């Protein structure tokens, strides 16, 4: 029965809603969206869009507004200026993104001074989270994904390895972690080489490796353009035919470029925290939503998942704090965050504010017309050994 009271109550509720429709939550996403590393930013943004597709973009009555800023490549100066402007001019509530470690390192002091939580969705060297108490990382660290590869290699009878990494913080991290884990397991690293970050030319380096005749080469280069160039050199020099195995972090067989690299990648074994072939209901939902909102992108890769999970964390914080978005309270929630990500279960270690997750060992296989990283072994709950 429609009583006067009920009408008045409905009216009151209707009038109250505009008051409750609060200010949007502003999230500044800083990453490369142009140049050779354009895919970094686009993947992260794709992950964010996929999250909004599955869960909407309004939590506790507050809409999440994304402000995208392009650093055009590994440009820490530009990243720093963009972050400063986001914080002072746009007054964002969260900073997110950061495709390269130098970008994150440059932004860290700004996050501290402005007391703005900074969600790292990709940058992968151990030192990043130590630079500000407001940084939380949802991607991975290179030592975290490299050390299990060493353990697996030793377990499977590989004794002599040559390492090749890119000469910047994540590469050096990877090399250090691999060496430590591999020698601890009884293996021998016959030699190491570091290639420059920009415009590397792999042919002479790969030739050097071939001449040293190791049993396997362990390598890490930034995902995308460089992994393609490396595979080309590896195939061209006939290292596989010479009996040298290729083991690497998953950046080499990045889901985004895997199909473009094609046949030479068959059988390559990598260790990483996300494969688009991961068999779980969350991943299936993620892939579906991704395909619907990102028609100009191909498959999601680990950066897409980093974007998705980073946004999931922000959403959780907004859900719990609503209009009381205090930075320190947000950090408390973020530090203890546990999520079921499309990659598997993840958690944040409150002591280091860094991510703890399962690292999978995968092999590239062909299913139908496409190439996939198929998981066949795993190391659960891996913390960052670099700290």
């Amino acid at each position, binding site marked *: 029965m429609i009583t006067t009271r009920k009408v008045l109550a409905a009216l009151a509720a209707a009038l109250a809603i505009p008051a409750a429709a609060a200010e949007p939550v502003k999230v500044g996403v800083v990453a490369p969206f142009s140049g*050779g590393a354009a895919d970094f930013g686009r993947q992260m943004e794709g992950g964010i869009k996929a999250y909004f597709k599955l869960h909407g973009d309004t939590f506790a009555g507050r809409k999440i507004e994304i402000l995208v800023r392009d650093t055009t490549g590994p440009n820490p100066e530009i990243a720093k200026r963009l972050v400063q402007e986001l914080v002072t001019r746009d007054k964002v509530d969260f900073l997110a993104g950061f495709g390269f470690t130098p970008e994150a390192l440059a932004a860290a002091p700004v996050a501290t001074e402005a007391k703005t939580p900074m969600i790292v969705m990709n940058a992968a060297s151990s030192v990043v989270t130590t630079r500000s108490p407001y940084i939380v990382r949802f991607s991975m660290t290179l030592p975290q994904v490299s050390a299990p590869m060493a353990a697996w290699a030793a377990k499977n009878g590989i004794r002599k390895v040559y390492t090749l990494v890119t000469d910047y913080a994540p590469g050096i991290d990877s090399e250090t972690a691999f060496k430590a884990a591999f020698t601890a397991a009884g293996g021998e690293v016959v030699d190491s080489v570091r290639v420059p970050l920009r415009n590397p*030319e792999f042919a*002479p380096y790969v*030739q050097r490796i071939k001449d040293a005749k190791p049993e396997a080469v362990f390598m890490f280069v930034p995902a995308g353009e460089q992994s393609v160039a490396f595979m*080309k050199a590896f195939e061209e020099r*006939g290292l596989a035919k010479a009996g040298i195995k290729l083991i690497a972090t998953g950046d080499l067989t990045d889901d985004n470029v895997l199909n473009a690299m*094609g046949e030479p990648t068959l059988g390559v074994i990598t260790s990483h925290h996300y494969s688009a072939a991961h068999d779980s209901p969350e991943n299936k939902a993620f892939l579906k939503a991704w395909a619907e909102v990102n028609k100009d992108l191909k498959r999601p890769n680990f950066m897409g998942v980093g974007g998705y999970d980073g946004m999931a964390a922000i959403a959780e914080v907004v859900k719990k704090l609503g209009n009381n978005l205090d930075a320190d309270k947000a950090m408390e929630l973020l530090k203890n965050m546990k999520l079921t990500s499309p990659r598997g279960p993840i958690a944040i270690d409150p002591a280091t504010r860094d991510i703890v997750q399962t690292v999978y060992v995968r092999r590239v296989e062909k299913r139908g017309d496409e190439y996939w990283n198929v998981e066949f072994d795993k190391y659960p709950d891996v913390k960052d050994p670099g700290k």
Partner: protein
Amino acid sequence: MIGVLFDGVAYGSVLFLVSVGLSVTMGLMNFVNLAHGAFAMAGGYVCVVAMTRLGVPFLAALPLAFLASAAAGAVLERTLYRRLYGASHLDQVLFSIGLTFMSIATATWLFGPSQQPVRLPEFLRGQVSFAGVDFGIYRLFLVAAVAVITLLLGALVARTRFGARLRAAVDDPQAARGLGIDVDRVFSVAFALGSGLAGLGGALGIEVLGLDASFPLKFMVYFLLVVVVGGAGSVRGPLAAALLLGVLDVAGKYYVPQAGAFVIYAAMVVLLIAFPAGLGRRRA
């Protein structure tokens, strides 16, 4: 050691093929053309498009790359470059940087920023063993192709009437005009030819140098280097310079990987100080 030398020669050959056009342009027209790499890039993209979208086999796509870049060069020379022959070097630098930016932006818009994958035909892949050293088949092909082209080019310059006119125009354009040589036409043909060769070099070089939208800027330094060190206006100078720089770069990276690109830049500065007019010792 031989392997490294060979790799350096292969790398240098590609550099030479692209740069020879620039040498002629800079020596002949005294024009600083920083956009030369864009013609090489255009050739590379034409080759990729022909192979992936039109299904043309690699060897047939190469002449297409040459023709496309030559045509582009001819058109641009007639319409734009020609008007800046007497202009200051600053103007030429700005103009060619502008052209370069436009070409990079267009390539990014059409093809995206990343590396273009190209599948070589089976008979060009893999390695062949000779005297205990492995030689990449593709690199052998590359060196052979460039050697043939160089010989043809040399014959063109030394034995044909066009070559004679070209040499005369390089030595002294005013005197050449006085003799009745149509220097403007020589310029046009030389520019088109140089651009075409650059395009061919770009296509051949995809396997060795890679191809992405920022190619012109990435490699511009190397092309300029080859021309200035070799001496603008000659063919043999840049050849020597390209091979030398190719070997130095590859050897540097192989034996002293920590030094990286340092070697090639240091070598350039040293060579420029020692030979201010270039190795070929022709009028710059």
